[in-house]
């Protein structure tokens, strides 16, 4: 077995594809955490987004009432709305009711896990596939050797995810909204004194986080895997939270972490495919081990938002 068997173009291509849900959800989580809200319910939100998006597309396509592109747009819209609603609930619980975020997030996760499975069993039953976002064929570019396969033969959501990385960085670092987010996350008292509505900013970022998590779920169920089954995400939302820490709360670094993680994952799948003499369990384990090791080194380097997990209470 040579290295050229492992590091094939298709491994790089699938690393990019696999990174999509992580980038969506981790970018959304970055917004929430920069404003001081630790949303641990990402995985539950992803599951709900994945199911609702899948179900919308499934219904639209079964009835044949809608053209395929339209049904997919509907699926994305539904996933965004459902994710946003769950973000709203999380914001209400952690901003208005000031509940402990680490634990309430686990509650939101369990809720999303249970409800998505419940609705799936009740409304769909057995795993069915839908025709999801097709791969785009760019003129000339897609036909380029190697480069074409790696970069120019993905579905739309992959490109959307990567486009959101610089956009998120720009919003966080160079807009008034981004300034408010950072202020609220670093020093809510000062932000409040400057006239920033702390609660409103945190609601906004948590809802954005929820919508991105919903989209992340949909990117699995209607673009990457094109089906739904119970616990489809298998904990990807928690990885996304870890990636935010790993990336030091900066969008580009978070996305780089997502790429690293999914590259290890793609390698793991490839090693399984070529039947290397490594037990598959260790290959599956590897990304998680690497994440822990990465967290050991990452958390030292960057300061986390000072007000992370702390509900804001106005001094009297």
């Amino acid at each position, binding site marked *: 077995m040579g290295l050229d068997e492992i590091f094939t173009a298709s491994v790089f291509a699938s690393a990019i594809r696999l990174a999509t849900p992580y980038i969506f959800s981790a970018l959304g989580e970055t917004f929430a955490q920069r404003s001081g809200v630790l949303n641990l319910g990402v995985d539950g939100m992803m599951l709900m987004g994945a199911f609702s998006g899948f179900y919308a597309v499934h219904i639209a396509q079964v009835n044949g009432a809608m053209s395929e592109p339209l049904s997919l747009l509907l699926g994305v819209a539904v996933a965004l709305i459902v994710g946003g609603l769950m973000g709203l609930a999380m914001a209400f619980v952690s901003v208005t009711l000031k509940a402990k975020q680490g634990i309430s997030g*686990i509650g939101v996760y369990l809720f999303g896990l249970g409800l998505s499975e419940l609705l799936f069993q009740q409304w769909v039953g057995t795993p069915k596939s839908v025709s999801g976002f097709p791969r785009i064929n760019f003129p000339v570019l897609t036909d380029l050797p190697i480069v074409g396969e790696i970069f120019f033969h993905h579905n739309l959501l992959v490109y959307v995810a990567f486009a959101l990385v610089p956009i998120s960085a720009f919003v966080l670092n160079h807009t008034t909204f981004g300034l408010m987010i950072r202020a609220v996350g670093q020093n809510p008292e000062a932000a409040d004194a400057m006239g920033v509505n702390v609660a409103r900013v945190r609601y906004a970022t948590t809802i954005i986080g929820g919508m991105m998590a919903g989209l992340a779920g949909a990117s699995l169920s209607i673009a990457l895997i094109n089906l739904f089954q119970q616990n489809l995400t298998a904990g990807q939302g928690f990885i996304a939270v870890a990636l935010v820490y790993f990336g030091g709360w900066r969008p580009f670094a978070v996305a780089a972490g997502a790429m690293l993680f999914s590259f290890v994952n793609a390698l793991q799948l490839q090693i399984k495919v070529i039947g290397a003499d490594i037990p598959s369990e260790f290959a599956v384990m590897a990304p998680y081990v690497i994440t822990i090791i990465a967290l050991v080194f990452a958390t030292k380097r960057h300061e986390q938002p000072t007000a992370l997990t702390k509900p804001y209470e106005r001094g009297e």
Partner: protein
Amino acid sequence: MNKASGFSQSALAGRLNRLIDFAPVLIALLLALLVASVLLLALNANPLEAYDFMLQGAAGSENAFAETLVKATPILFVGIGITIAFRGGMINIGGEGQMIAGALAGVTIALIMGEMRVPPELAKEKGAFDIIIVACSLVGGFLMGALYGGLAGFLKAYFDVNEILSTIMLNQIAVQMMNFLLNGILLDPAEAGFNNIPKTARLVTAAQLPRLSLPIGDPHLFARTRLHWGLIIAIVLAAVIYIFLWRTSWGYRIRAVGENQRASSYAGINVKRQMMFSMFLAGGFAGLAGVVQVLGLQYRLQTDGSPAGFTGAAGFNGIVAALFGGLNPLGAIPAAAFFGGLLVGAQKMQRELGVPASLITAVNGLIVVFVVSSEIFIQQRSKRRVSVAEEEAPAPTLNPSSKMREGLSSSDDGQEEG
């Protein structure tokens, strides 16, 4: 701020206060039931009918009730551990992985010792050697779970790795490790070469935890059920940990760190050590949950390969039970029984009404959210009460169900008083 009224000094008021401390739990339950009813209606099921079936399934017969207790046992073990961790300010989400770690160690010890020939000096006392096997397995399971939990505590204490994230990763790693071992050296020799269903060989009788029956009626109560001694062990340990947390200086230090790390450190408490210690104990109890499942119920370690294939998600449900029990080990006993009943009852509901039992996962999530959300109300109450207490007596009121939980955020600052 409300000032002390004469009435609040009476014993009646004290009792009322304690009752009100449990109000959030009851309110959370009612709200969760309400949402569950709406969900059931949306699924075209009659909520009352569904709850009736659940009640029947959970407590409608001797066997149903025994099954409830059987399901409650691992939840209680994990819940005791989670209570220790949360009291120590550590958010341990790693119950699943710690259960698996404990089960792997325990089953290995039980399998090896079960094969050993009884030492001659013990040959007359065959029962004594059986007890040694079971005891060694339980201790081994506890220690392995404790080391696995302690690892997350270590990473938090010395590398500032968020324990929520590390325990979640460690869960996944434990599942893979279990799958690897069950497909490899721990695989039942009878399975090898056939189906390769991932499971160990069956434990010999000597290595099993005995079934439990109560000498009431004929045949004895629970004599024909799967109820085992694990339940008794868990209940006894719940009482032990209650005493540990509130009557020993070790427990006091854990709680102090959970309440306010900075103040504890100024008071000379080694905060890092306490973090590791509370995670060590929490992992140990989850480990016990795992090994007791093997020794008392399944008599082998087996999984379907899915993450919760062995644990039945008891590692997560233990978190719910701990919160529901007011982060008090004794409160975790009825809480675990309740969630055990919920799980068993949901299966009956699924059979009778066709409503998927996963409803319970969603309801559990809601209960968690509602319990932690309603704390804002107790916090306001306890603030009032603290100001009252400051006036009346110098001793600080340690109100277990509200003040302690303020220390649960992963940050190290105490809450500012408004």
